[in-house]
């Protein structure tokens, strides 16, 4: 009842807006005006990001990259004559703020969709709200499998390869490469660490991890945990850590004279970011560091996507440092533009959802997206990177993980080709 009243209010507002618009420019058609966030010349989308607060250090550069890509698209004429307006609201990674920010964007700014809302705790706080309001909630920037629940949350789509998928790939690789080694785990004491550890144990067995240690972000002194792993004789350590704590783990271990093989999640394995924490000893400390990733590598100058994104970064992002976050932000932007393009000349929320469900939206990752009618899973696989002499680059072939249940899954090499970049990095 309340909702229908709201809808009525929205309709009245939209109608009056339409009236105003037609007064201002009588020759423009108005058939798209009843879709929230869509006018004849613009598409308005929103996101919530930690621009301030403790999480800002790791993530505040993502939304400027997305915006830079949108600006680039707008300069090239937009999508079907519409430019993309990107509203970025700061939530400081605080779920209470996220609720306010998202309500404002949905009810007041009337965004067409949310794109790339960041963080498991913040986004979980608005998951019900956006789905109740039937707002497309695309490409959540978090590796939690929560976003893949099409039955309960039909409007929400994932983006990142999820934690259990990533950890299965890393564990499978470790078994192939270091079959006799002692495996251990160091992770964050929340769903990130738990999901990751579950994935590892699915591959390595219940007793596959000789030592499993967790850290709390409230305490940066992790000497106790790392020394325990050293004493347990751990040789291959899996990391479910954010970048700061990956660096802290590697740095603390080095101080203890301990140099195991590290295998990190994509959430905490970005070389540029890690070197920001580790300073001048980076190259030495990260030699041989393995981590998962699925997007174009920012140091991979041969990659056409990387080259294009670097160019856009120079021109539209004021030449901000080019790193994994830049690629991440622009890839989210690209994927949205691709979906919007596929949603037709006069997109509606329904046609956008249909476009995603069709599976024709492919993105720019090394592994395929899991989008379809019964799956809203983001990238379904990953490729591994290794650091050698201060350069992080991909090696081997991508892996793809089918099935998300703990018992039923397979990890196999992915033989498909990544989608080639369309001309100018603009979806056709």
């Amino acid at each position, binding site marked *: 009842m309340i909702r229908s009243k709201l809808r009525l209010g929205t309709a009245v507002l939209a109608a009056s807006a339409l009236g105003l618009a037609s007064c201002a420019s009588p020759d423009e058609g108005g058939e798209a005006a009843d879709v929230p966030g869509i006018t004849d010349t613009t598409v308005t989308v929103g996101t919530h990001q930690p621009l301030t607060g403790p999480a800002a*250090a790791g993530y505040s550069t993502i939304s400027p990259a997305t915006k830079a890509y949108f600006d680039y698209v707008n300069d090239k004429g937009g999508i079907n004559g519409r430019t993309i307006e990107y509203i970025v609201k700061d939530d400081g990674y605080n779920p209470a703020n996220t609720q306010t920010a998202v309500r404002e964007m949905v009810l007041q700014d009337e965004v067409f969709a949310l794109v790339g809302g960041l963080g498991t705790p913040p986004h979980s706080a608005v998951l019900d709200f956006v789905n109740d309001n039937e707002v497309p909630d695309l490409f959540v920037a978090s590796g939690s499998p929560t976003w893949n629940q099409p039955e309960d949350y039909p409007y929400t789509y994932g983006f990142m390869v999820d934690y259990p998928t990533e950890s299965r790939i890393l564990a499978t690789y470790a078994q192939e490469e270091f079959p006799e080694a002692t495996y251990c785990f160091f992770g964050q004491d929340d769903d990130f660490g738990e999901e990751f550890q579950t994935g590892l144990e699915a591959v390595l067995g219940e007793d596959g991890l000789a030592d499993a240690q967790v850290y709390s972000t409230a305490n940066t002194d992790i000497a106790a945990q790392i020394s325990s792993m050293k004493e347990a004789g751990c040789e291959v350590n899996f990391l479910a850590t954010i970048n700061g704590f990956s660096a802290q783990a590697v740095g603390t271990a080095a101080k203890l004279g301990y140099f195991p093989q590290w295998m990190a999640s994509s959430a905490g394995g970005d070389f540029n970011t890690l070197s920001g924490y580790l*300073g001048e000893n980076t190259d030495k400390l990260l030699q041989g560091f393995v981590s998962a990733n699925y997007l174009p590598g920012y140091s991979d100058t041969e990659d056409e996507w990387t080259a294009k994104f670097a160019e856009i970064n120079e021109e539209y992002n004021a030449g901000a440092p080019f790193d994994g976050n830049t690629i991440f932000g622009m890839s989210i932007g690209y994927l949205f533009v691709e979906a919007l393009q596929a949603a037709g000349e006069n997109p509606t929320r329904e046609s956008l959802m249909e476009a995603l469900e069709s599976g024709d939206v492919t993105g720019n990752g090394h592994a395929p997206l899991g989008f379809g009618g019964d799956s809203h899973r983001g990238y379904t696989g990953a490729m591994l990177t290794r650091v050698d002499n201060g350069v992080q680059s991909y090696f081997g072939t991508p892996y793809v993980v089918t099935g998300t249940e703990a018992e039923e899954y397979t990890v196999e090499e992915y033989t498909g080709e990544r989608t080639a970049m369309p001309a100018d990095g603009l979806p056709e």
Partner: protein
Amino acid sequence: MDRFLFLTFDGLARGAVLAAFALSLVLIWRAARIVNFAQGAMAVAATYVAFTVTAVTGSYWAGLAAALVAGFLIGAVVERGVMRFVGNTSPLNPVIAGLGLLMLIQAVLGMVFGNAYRTMVTPFSSDPVEMFGITVFSSYDLFVFACIAVLVGGLVLLFTKTPLGLRLRASAFAPDLARLLGVRTPRMLTLGWALSSALGALAALLVIPTELGLNPHAADAVFVYAFTVAVIGGLDSPAGAVLGGLAVGVLLSWVSGYWGATLAPVAILVLLLAVLLVRPGGIFSLAKERTA
């Protein structure tokens, strides 16, 4: 046994910094009856000054000196510019002003220096030194101990052996009487803030290189622990702050090492609760609690 020693030494190294930071809170409390919630941000601001000076001159020691000077000045400016006008009519006023200042400083630092973590150089290696057959302190830890010992020692001498220290104590404990006797209590108050802020700056400068790096929020967690230490030791008691700091550092390390990192902050809160129930003034508080 090796592990026990390792955890204990690791805890002491961190505890020393908590002690210094808690001491800086105690200094302000004694001088002004204010728990300064902006202390962490003020210390980080001074550390950014040190970072910039070190980057420009290439000398760690110039940065260290700059942190102390900047801390001193920031403390004085905050007292003269903000806290003096807040008034003590309600104990909440300075708390709110402190929190506001905290957010303001963090936001300004973010605007000026960005939110990214910056690596800070240390003058000594952080590689551990073998002692008693196990790896314990690094030379950097020993440097931290030395710095804090020198500064705390200096403060003790200042407060107990010099005429200035006497005036500082007089204006803290009996401001009206001190003023009648010719002590310029407002100036002493400013000096108290400045000294406290300089000490906080030193603590932040020493601890940040061992953590994730320099960031507007780098002292948030340290402030919370140090505040707990100050309450546990007794907000009135400098000795309590120092001993409490070392004890909390060791407790954090033991709990984190034996029961898991998740429980470490909880253990500190349990300790805080126990102290507040059994001895609300803090373990080392003066026999008779003074009121504001």
